């Protein structure tokens, strides 16, 4: 009998009070989260927060110290063999054989579960990552980004119900990052669920929901915009005569009229400047690392622009 996997309304991933200790080190300290079927779910946190450990638990390659992990209705420990048939997993490191070609790597990993029409699937996924022409070249001749592409192709090989991606775009060039995300959206439209870890804010903004993890605990799980709106907006009123008044508002849309009414909308106010914090700032304030700077969450830089035109901006927003 298939467990709760048959229930369409059941979550894709359900993690309850998951704890993992490596000797005296606590990697996960009671993490709890739910991933809905068909969503793109992001796990955001600094290095060492427990992202990879959590992903391993979902794939059934981690023995939890305590807690429960249910994936597609299967217990990730007890039913791991049945569960893994439905998973696509892309680890953080490419985890491929350097002496072999992409075609040989995919053939080898595809044989684990006897993928149907393996040759056709390999052609399809290598075509998607634009490496079909390099299918017979040994992997050690590939760049880091190209290896990531082969690794993603490997994860897509069996057209999985749930795609688990551990920092999938690390080391991938911006154009290809955009292609990756286009494909993630295509998969979502086909009802697939995507669970990815990232420390890139523009990627977090593209997810339907995001969980922020720190020191093995989930701090919050919400839509990225909802998380962002938790930050305190800075409202600066520049007054006639060079004076200025700075206010902080939790919900600036509500606070602004009150603030302005205090001035009676007088000509004294020359300029109003509203600065909403970006997702990174909000998350950093949540994980309390802004000052320390350690394990800083990455944001995109000028030479690494956010992919896709429709994605919400992750940069600070200024209204004047």
């Amino acid at each position, binding site marked *: 009998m298939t467990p709760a996997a048959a229930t369409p309304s059941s979550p894709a991933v359900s993690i309850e009070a998951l704890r993992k200790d490596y000797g005296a080190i606590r990697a996960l300290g009671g993490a709890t989260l739910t991933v809905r079927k068909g969503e793109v779910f992001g796990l955001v946190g600094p290095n060492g927060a427990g992202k990879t450990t959590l992903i391993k638990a979902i794939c059934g390659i981690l023995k939890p110290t305590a807690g429960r992990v249910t994936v597609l209705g299967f217990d990730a420990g007890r039913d791991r063999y049945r569960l893994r048939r439905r998973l696509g997993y892309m680890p953080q490191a490419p985890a491929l054989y350097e002496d072999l070609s992409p075609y040989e790597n995919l053939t080898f990993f595809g044989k684990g579960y006897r993928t149907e029409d393996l040759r056709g699937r390999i052609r399809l996924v290598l075509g998607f990552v634009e490496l079909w022409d390099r299918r017979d070249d040994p992997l050690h001749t590939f760049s880091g980004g190209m290896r990531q592409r082969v690794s993603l192709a*490997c994860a897509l090989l069996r057209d999985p119900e749930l795609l688990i991606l551990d920092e999938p775009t690390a080391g991938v060039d911006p154009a290809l990052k955009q292609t990756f995300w286009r494909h993630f959206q295509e998969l979502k439209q086909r009802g697939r669920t995507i669970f990815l870890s990232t420390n890139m804010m523009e990627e977090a903004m593209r997810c339907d929901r995001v969980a922020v993890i720190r020191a093995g605990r989930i701090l919050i799980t919400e839509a990225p915009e909802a998380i962002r709106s938790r930050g305190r907006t800075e409202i600066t009123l520049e007054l006639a005569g060079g004076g200025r008044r700075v206010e902080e508002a939790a919900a600036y849309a509500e606070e602004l009229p009150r603030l302005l009414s205090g001035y009676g909308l007088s000509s004294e106010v020359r300029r109003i400047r509203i600065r909403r914090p970006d997702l990174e700032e909000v998350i950093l304030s949540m994980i309390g690392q802004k000052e320390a700077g350690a394990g800083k969450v990455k944001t995109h830089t000028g030479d690494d622009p956010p992919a896709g035109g429709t994605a919400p901006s992750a940069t600070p927003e200024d209204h004047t």
Partner: protein
Amino acid sequence: MIASVKAIAVRINRQFLRDRRFLGLSLMVPLLIMLLIKYVLDSLPGLERLGVHVSDYAMFFAAYLVHFLAYVLSTIVLVGDRTTGTLARMFVYGYRRREIVFGYVGGYSTIAAGQTAFILVLTKYLFDINLLPDIVPVALTMFSLAVVSVDLGVFISNFARNEGQVIPFIPLVILPTALLSGIAIPIGDLPTVLQWCSYVIPLRYAVEVLNAVLVNHQPFRDNLAPFLILVGIGAGLLATASFTLKERE
């Protein structure tokens, strides 16, 4: 299961065939070591006067070399699979513990068999040993030893998280083997406690067979016991490794 075991063994062999440096070294290293052994044994004064024939010992050293190379190679490469994440990926992509262990043993045993054949030929010509009458039992014993060494490597690799942790396990197996297998000191001359310890040394049984067949010219069928113990140790290690290979952290 057979298809998965075959897929792993084929993958391993394909990798090694691509690695020209490895191929070159796996022939050069035995050649250099056997040359060194010959040079050292030939230069020892009065060995022949004591009734010791260098050629009697050559095959023991060859067996030791087979054991050492196969054990170290399989230990390091499987631990490498763990550190690079390919082992975890294999699990997630449907390979089971038993399939992985059997696949690795299959793959490395093919490599070890090739290397063993080369060492046998090398020893025959370097030390002018007439192997032909005993080629079947000698080759069978050497090949079984190579497979047992691979089994041992796969088993030991369970206890190392990275390649660095493999290093202490190399002398832990190789030095007691050199001292307690009978290649350097006759087992009967060892203290009783060490004689007991020698029962767990796989090379001891290979040396017993080689000694009986090559030195004492006894028929192989009269010396099946040590050969079967050797095979039994291999089967035991294989079964243990299938259960101890860590699937979940």
